[in-house]
């Protein structure tokens, strides 16, 4: 018996073509589109991490900007103070820093659930934001910290190469590989015995405790993993943006992470990914189209919650079910 059983193999089959499309994309679309998609994939990694808490553990964090921001600032600081230019080391810095912060914040937060968890995560992320904002001589304040293009696997950007071209090709592939790896890892985690334990905690905390799952410990580990994924995303985001500002630490950005995930559908594994990519397009479009883009996004969110609570993936599932039923009812010729 192969370790990958029936439904699992189907997932691989479904994921294959998508990855192929993502691979050839930079050759067929404008660089701008590729860069936009890179942002989407980076946010998707953050959303995957976030949804380990919301979708699988039942904890709604309103402070995930903290880990994204810590990942990003760790990169900026490492570049600025340690003069490191290797992206791999920078990612390591981002991961370590976000793991540290998530480990500490998690200790505090996992003892609570529901709205208290939400407010606590929010308050702690605001602590970081206000520090980044006030200690401007370290963080650059609202001006942020500028980060030069790093080297990827030891190779630096070609002399005279256009930054856009670099981002749209080499960096895109870099992000893509990490995105695929992160998705695969997360997929295994949520389907592991540990992942089942998290879902059990989500469904029924008391009973989980009574089958021997130590709820706080598991929540803490989930929190840590969630923070690390989001921190990785933050670190990857820096070269795309070229600049780290307190905007990514402020709670509105946490709200956006929640938004992506619900947009895609937090009850499915792929929902957050789809949501992050779609949201990124939606926001880019709205920002380019009107100064009142926040209002536009707000209207989308309100409509979503009222009319489409299961998100895009929920809608897709419903439609495909309808179609397959229709298909079955039509007799074969």
């Amino acid at each position, binding site marked *: 018996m192969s370790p990958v*059983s029936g439904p699992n193999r189907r997932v691989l089959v479904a994921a294959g073509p998508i990855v192929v499309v993502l691979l050839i994309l930079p050759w067929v679309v404008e660089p701008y589109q590729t860069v936009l998609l890179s942002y989407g994939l980076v946010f998707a990694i953050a959303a995957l991490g976030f949804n380990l808490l919301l979708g699988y553990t039942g904890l709604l964090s309103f402070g995930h900007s903290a880990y994204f921001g810590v990942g990003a600032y760790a990169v900026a600081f490492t570049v600025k103070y340690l003069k490191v230019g290797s992206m791999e080391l920078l990612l390591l810095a981002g991961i370590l820093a976000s793991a540290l912060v998530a480990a500490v914040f998690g200790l505090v937060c996992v003892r609570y659930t529901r709205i208290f968890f939400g407010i606590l995560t929010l308050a702690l992320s605001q602590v970081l934001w206000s520090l980044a904002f006030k200690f401007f001589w370290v963080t650059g304040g609202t001006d942020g910290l500028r980060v030069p293009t790093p080297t990827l696997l030891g190779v630096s950007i070609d002399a005279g190469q256009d930054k856009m071209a670099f981002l749209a090709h080499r960096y895109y592939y870099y992000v893509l590989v990490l995105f695929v790896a992160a998705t695969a890892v997360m997929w295994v985690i949520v389907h592991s015995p540990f992942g089942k334990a998290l879902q059990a905690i989500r469904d*029924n905390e008391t009973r989980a405790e009574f089958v021997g799952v130590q709820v706080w410990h598991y929540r803490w580990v989930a929190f840590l993993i969630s923070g690390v994924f989001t921190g990785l995303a933050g670190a990857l985001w820096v070269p795309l943006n070229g600049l780290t500002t307190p905007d990514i630490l402020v709670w509105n950005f946490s709200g956006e992470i929640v938004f992506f995930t619900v947009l895609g559908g937090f009850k499915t594994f792929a929902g957050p990914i789809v949501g992050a990519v779609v949201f990124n397009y939606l926001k880019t479009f709205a920002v380019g189209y009107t100064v009142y883009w926040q209002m536009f996004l707000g209207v989308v969110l309100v409509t979503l919650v009222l009319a489409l609570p299961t998100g895009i993936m929920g809608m897709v599932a419903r439609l495909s079910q309808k179609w397959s039923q229709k298909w079955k009812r039509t007799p074969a010729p």
Partner: protein
Amino acid sequence: MEEDARAVSLLKTTQLTKYFGETHAVDHVDFTVTEGEVLALIGSNGAGKTTLINLISGLIPVDSGAIVFQGADITRDSIHEKIARGIARSFQLVNLFDQLTTLDNLALAIFSRDGKTRKLFTLSDADRAVRDEAVAVLQQFGLANKAGMVAGGLSQGERKLLDVAVAYALKPKLLFLDEPTSGVSTREKAPIMDIITSVVRAGKITAVIVEHDMDVVFKYCPRIVAMHQGTILADGTPEEIRNNAQVTANLLGAQAQS
């Protein structure tokens, strides 16, 4: 309790007490369970049966008194430590993982029992041993054909059975079943109790079953403990309980009316 002196005492509470404000839910209770027996805990509504189980299983902290399990004082042990020692329970109001499948509800209990829930990087479906065991337990409880259904979609009777099955799958030494047939129709009660008692006996598990239906109790349990207003009123064989004047006055009378 004299007659129990020869047998091995598995669990013993001494002067166990829990008050909720004015309510003396469990009041200086000395309660003993002997290894290997299937014991019924009876008593009218509010007698303190569930509270007693909650205290022993660690859901709520005790006010005073002691709980000794296999010679060790476990009064202040955490739920987790008590589970690890082999004390499991089911719930009066069904407590399941509603969005997980019936199979996964059991698989989780088995993973947890075997310390495998710490595994992050293996697929749970790939563990054949756990899967087979979960299926076997489902078969014992007559739930095998519901394996792929989410627990939230089961009928009340099936949910009660699954609740017991999840506790049973932990392979405990001592199993508390809090009203395993509550909320199901009278017709369904006997089959459920048949399944539960046969599984428990086959697994050589010591069990304490809370049950309101006296016919069921007399039929399945050789020893009965009757509670009333937080204290133990009587303790004995079905025959002794049936003929105990206090029990008849306080419990069986009420039973007859309801």
